[in-house]
């Protein structure tokens, strides 16, 4: 089963997806990442309102066996977190691109968006 990569999203080589909606960036982990992790059992989310710099730890996703840090793909203020994941972290496995989003960031520096990769480039990194 091929991992789904959506054309309308931006990506990082660290298997995050980013959906740009004006000044807001929605961040999640890719279908490939959730399939590699399998059985996500715990998500440690940041507090809304927190400022993060690109490359800083954004949240932690744990599977049964492993602990994975997710790093901020862009600098900005966290305006929303997906608190449904507190009780149902498995949503990330079931719906990585929709219900399983992690946080929404208010983008601080638009030029950082250029550092993200497109769907075609991301596909090549997971081939």
């Amino acid at each position: 089963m091929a991992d789904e990569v959506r054309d309308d999203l931006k990506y990082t080589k660290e298997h995050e997806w980013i959906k740009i909606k004006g000044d807001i960036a929605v961040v999640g982990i890719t279908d490939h990442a959730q399939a590699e992790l399998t059985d996500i059992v715990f998500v440690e989310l940041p507090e809304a309102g927190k400022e993060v710099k690109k490359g800083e730890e954004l949240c932690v996703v744990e599977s049964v066996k492993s602990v994975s840090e997710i790093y901020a793909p862009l600098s900005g203020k966290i305006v929303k977190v997906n608190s449904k994941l507190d009780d149902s972290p498995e949503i990330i496995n079931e719906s990585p691109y929709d219900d399983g989003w992690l946080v929404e960031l208010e983008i601080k520096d638009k030029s950082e968006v250029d550092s993200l990769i497109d769907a075609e480039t991301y596909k090549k990194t997971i081939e």
Partner: protein
Amino acid sequence: MVKRSPLYDIQKKLGAKFTEFAGFEMPIQYSSIKEEHMAVRRNVGLFDVSHMSNLWITGSDTEKLVSLTTVEDASRIPDGKSQYTAILRDDGTVIDDIIFMHLGDKFMMIPNAGMDETVTKWLKDKAKENNFDVDVENVSSGFVILAIQGPKSRDTLQKLTDTDLNEVKFFGCRDIDIAGVNCIISHTGYTGELGFELQISPVGDAKDVFLKILEAGEEFNIKPVGLGARDTLRLEKGFILAGNEFEGGRTPLEAVMSWVIHWDHDFIGKDALLKQKEKGGYERLTSFECVEKGIPRHGCDVQVDGKKVGTITSGTMSPCLNTGIAMGYVHPDYREKDSIVEIVVRGKLVKAKVLRPPIVPKDWVRNH
């Protein structure tokens, strides 16, 4: 060089993801750790544990050597029985925990993965020092080891043999034909469920046995199971994983294995254990269930009132309980049953309750 099980190719075809463990590339999971875990708790699962070691011990002084080098009095273990025990250094710390099987005039010992050379050398040296008439042969690469575990394990295997498996009692061991292949069977396991382990030699015969067991178990929804679920299954029962719980040198008293120590015979490490017992005050392996969200992992500190009282050696999310569970070494004053400690997970304090193992009781499945 990383070793592979002779079953690697079939496992790859079955969709296994692999991990390196103690020098072996073994399946960590096939479908999902949770699914494989629950298959073993509710039905039956098949594990390849060929990374474990196999030694033959033969000669007229076999019993004497095993008694001297383990905390077990081997003369107590009759032909056709196996025993869980530990091999100690002179200072009482554990070199390895093992199972040995008494099979006629010889013993088979099963040290942990990657421990074959260390244990073989240790036993040979002790045999030589004591002029024992005994030979120790490392035959690890000559055996495939399969574990069939779960409430339907007996029904699955029974379809492949004429021997009545009810006659293989708990910790019993014997020769048997499974799917037309001669193996050594023991009624043992590492999951806390009904289960059996098969030692198969030559290894070329094992592929057929592996596939026939999967076929026989189909009606019970058997699953091949990787090391991921093997770890969660053992941790829910409070079973020790040598690489984690003996790391840095721990005695069987610290590991709360007193129940396997036979004090009525002389063994290497006994004096050190007696001294430790008399002195007291040593840390003891303790089980925990988190009462707050969070998953303790190897190396986390255990605190009470902001003071460090212990260290976690193993931790995971329990697939049965859906909470974080763990074990670790704790100061004897802070391990009273049902008391609350705090485990430091990435700088955050997660409250956890002290339990006595098993963390998940035997009747859990029946009640859920």
